[in-house]
């Protein structure tokens, strides 16, 4: 869901761009609280992994594909602030080197995928964790739920930008309905990939999963 240049007019792109810059500035400040010797490399690797998996478009419906957005995956792995920055790094590399997503649309894409998707994921993940049993195997499920919700909400965020500054002639309501329904399907793929990845990582190195570590108030120190 990378918006190319031209879909949204420049005033809207610039305004949302300012929001994206402000959000990223806050994330840069707050991410410091989440990053230590172990999580900093993990955040970098999360960006790398998201870049790679975003190349893997999967078919969803007749003639349509989708790919991971990664907001939920990153949020569960490294916490929301570092997650937002990780996704922004990916979007920057894609827009600047791969011509994937426009340059004037970069702020729109950062807003939808690094801010909206991550924020929604963070909230949904926390809510799901509260409802599910407090065991490790709940984490991939909570992550899947967050992933599933984050995709259509990000699509709705695009539809809102289209309603404000879309250059096309299609009515905003139609675009919203089409974006939302298509991305509910893509959200299922997002949920599956997120769940599988978190399951794999949590079963090998649960200590590196922010969303699980952060469950515990006190740290257990195991004596060797």
């Amino acid at each position: 869901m990378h918006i190319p240049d031209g879909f949204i007019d420049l005033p809207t792109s610039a305004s949302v761009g300012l929001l994206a810059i402000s959000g990223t500035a806050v994330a840069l400040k707050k991410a410091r609280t989440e990053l230590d010797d172990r999580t900093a490399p993990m955040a970098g690797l999360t960006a790398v992994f998201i870049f790679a998996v975003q190349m893997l478009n999967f078919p969803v419906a007749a003639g349509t594909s989708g790919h991971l957005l990664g907001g939920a995956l990153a949020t569960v792995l490294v916490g929301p602030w570092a997650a937002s920055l990780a996704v922004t790094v990916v979007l920057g590399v894609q827009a600047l080197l791969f011509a994937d997503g426009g340059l004037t649309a970069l702020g729109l894409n950062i807003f939808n995928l690094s801010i909206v998707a991550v924020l929604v994921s963070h909230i949904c993940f926390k809510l799901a964790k509260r409802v599910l049993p407090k065991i490790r195997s709940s984490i991939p499920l909570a992550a899947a739920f967050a992933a599933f919700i984050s995709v259509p909400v990000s699509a709705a965020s695009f539809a809102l930008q289209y309603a404000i500054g879309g250059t096309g002639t299609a009515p905003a309501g139609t675009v919203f309905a089409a974006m939302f329904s298509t991305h509910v399907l893509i959200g299922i793929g997002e949920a599956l990939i997120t769940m599988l990845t978190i399951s794999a990582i949590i079963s090998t190195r649960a200590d590196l999963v922010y969303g699980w570590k952060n469950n515990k108030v006190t740290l257990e120190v195991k004596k060797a």
Partner: protein
Amino acid sequence: MTEKAEKSLKKFYVGFFVVAMALAGVVSYYASSHPDGLEKVAENEGFLETAKNSAVSGSPLADYGIAGLDNERLSVGLSGIVGVVITALVGMLLFKFLKKKS
């Protein structure tokens, strides 16, 4: 961190990176080439033609290929590997910088 724990941590990081490399470098060739959700909606709702070429559409890596390399498998795979390495460099530097300042 004990030496042993540090070693196993490094092993995990390397493993994670290798998986990403394999996905971008090899598996990417098998990805669906259908338009993604947004592109499809734009096509159906008649606003796909409002898209403009990005200012970097002439990039040698544009659209996940290597300019001038005709072998599709090599072209996609190599562009993926280049992307993984660049993302790793940018990401590692950024997060290392942020961490140190804390």
